[in-house]
């Protein structure tokens, strides 16, 4: 159905989807030029909740910017913490103790699962299925409870520090994480039986919402959007950071480039994250969780630096320009949803409204990250 109506009437109207609309999951507005129920032109309109994190970064010290990172992608905040910690460590040459790296990986992967779970629920909600949301929240709640015990917060984490993490994990956390891995492994078949194999869902996602590989490249789409188009690109493998190379995990890649492929990529990623957590818990070393020699006022040497991590939505990169003082001269935040959303304008052209919204949901947008 991904084609224009065979006989367009040339009578179009503009449908304003948003800024408040149930399907946009945030303050996103999409100006749709419609021909009946066919989308002729789709133009996302952004900036309703733009907070100018990049300017904020220039006005505070390196360390003071850390809480901001958790407020961009509130669903995978720890990856954002991680990237900022990594880039400053790269710039200032700080070594991170091994135990801290393990804790970072475990918490960050737990956070990734929670992000995918929320996406899963919200995506099915977009398609009109209500109940999976509550099931997914049930599992997500376990992760939030776990992370709350070590980070002190449930959503906008600020847990990583330059040179380590703020708080060591204890046996309760480890036991809880192990229990969660076991629980989640049991739940995944249920999700697949309940949702993935549902005939209506398959009909709504298969062969709909094509974002092919070349389109991904032209628009710079990353994450599950690219992996659903057959591009084997995951920063964790591609540009290894932290201690990811030590773990044995696969990058799920699907070649269909449709909404179903992106759905499957995320569902498989949950399982891969569970594998990483399990391995990390097994190999957890003892030791400190903070580097010893982290200067109080951090002054990374002059120059510009780039670092990227894989968040739940794709590659998140920071370009930091340091002028040798304790405040960044420039912080560019390259957020994945932003690039993934640009695809929508071209990909949605000629689709029916419900399919276009399924495509929008399958991109997994977090609006505060687009309007950072």
């Amino acid at each position, binding site marked *: 159905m991904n084609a224009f109506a065979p006989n367009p009437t040339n009578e179009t109207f503009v449908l304003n989807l948003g800024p408040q609309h149930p399907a946009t999951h945030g303050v996103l507005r999409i100006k749709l030029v419609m021909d009946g129920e066919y989308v002729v032109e789709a133009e996302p309109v952004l*900036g309703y909740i733009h907070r100018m994190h990049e300017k904020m970064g220039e*006005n505070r010290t390196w360390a003071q910017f850390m809480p901001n990172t958790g407020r961009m992608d509130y669903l995978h905040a720890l990856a954002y913490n991680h990237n900022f910690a990594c880039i400053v460590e790269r710039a200032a040459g700080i070594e991170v103790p091994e135990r801290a790296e393990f804790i970072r990986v475990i918490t960050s992967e737990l956070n990734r699962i929670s992000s995918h779970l929320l996406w899963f629920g919200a995506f099915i909600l977009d398609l009109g299925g209500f109940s999976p949301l509550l099931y997914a929240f049930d599992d997500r709640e376990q992760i939030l409870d776990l992370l709350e015990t070590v980070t002190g917060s449930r959503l906008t984490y600020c847990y990583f520090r330059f040179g380590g993490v703020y708080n060591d994990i204890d046996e309760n956390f480890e036991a809880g994480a192990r229990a969660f891995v076991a629980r989640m492994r049991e739940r995944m078949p249920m999700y697949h039986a309940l949702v993935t194999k549902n005939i209506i869902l398959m009909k709504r996602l298969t062969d709909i919402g094509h974002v092919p590989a070349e389109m991904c490249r032209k628009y710079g789409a990353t994450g599950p959007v*690219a992996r659903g188009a057959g591009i084997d690109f995951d920063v964790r493998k591609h540009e290894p950071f932290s201690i990811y190379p030590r773990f044995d995990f696969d990058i799920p890649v699907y070649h269909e480039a449709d909404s179903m492929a992106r759905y499957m990529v995320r569902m498989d990623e949950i399982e891969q994250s569970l594998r990483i957590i399990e391995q990390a818990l097994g190999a957890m070393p003892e030791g400190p969780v903070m580097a010893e020699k982290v200067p109080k006022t951090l002054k990374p040497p002059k120059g510009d*630096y780039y670092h990227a991590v894989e968040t739940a939505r794709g*590659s998140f990169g920071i*370009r930091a320009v340091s002028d040798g003082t304790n405040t960044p001269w*420039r912080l*560019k935040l390259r957020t994945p949803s932003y690039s993934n959303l640009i695809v929508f304008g071209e990909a949605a052209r000629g689709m029916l409204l419900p399919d276009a919204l399924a495509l929008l949901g399958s991109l997994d947008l977090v609006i505060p990250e687009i309007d950072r």
Partner: protein
Amino acid sequence: MDTDAITRPLEAVPTTAVKTVDYKARGFHLEVSVSPQHLRDVVTVLDRTGFFIETITGVDWLGEKAALRKEAEAAAAAKAKAAAAKAAKAAEEASAEVSTEESPAPKAEKAPAPVAAPEAPKQPEVPQTDDLEAVYDFNRYDTLFRVAVRVRVPRDTPEIPTISEIYPAAHWHEREARDFFGFTFAGHPYMVPLLLPEDADFHPLRKDFTA
């Protein structure tokens, strides 16, 4: 990725300076400086060799020229003393500069933002305009190879050709860069503010911007 395979065609483009960067320390592999006129040629080369665009951004180098000159002129030890002596003189020259410069208002306002721009107080003594730099980040899906393309333009006439026909993603990135830095991307088909309000006439990421 064979570095030569990409550097050779890039070096063939006039006015480019290609520099390999220490990836471990900096996070990217190649730095390409190019003049605005030849930016599109560089980007075309990157497109042909299969790079994808990560982002386009800007850096405001307000105060850079002053700092460079200062470095050359004065020894580090005399810095504090010289700055105090020039304080009064600086104010005078700032007003003199206003009449000659195209964009006087930002110049006058930039002084009260010393936190954001530590070198700023020395700026007025230099007649040259500072640069705005546009940075284009490219990456590859198959192998790890990051390229940063840098284009420098003067702050008062920051005109750069658009690359939105080559990479459609640049549509948004360029609109964002214009919002925040005031670049003019010549040939961009739809230059309306993306993240700022429709009627915004300010550029918040310029160093002389005060809320």
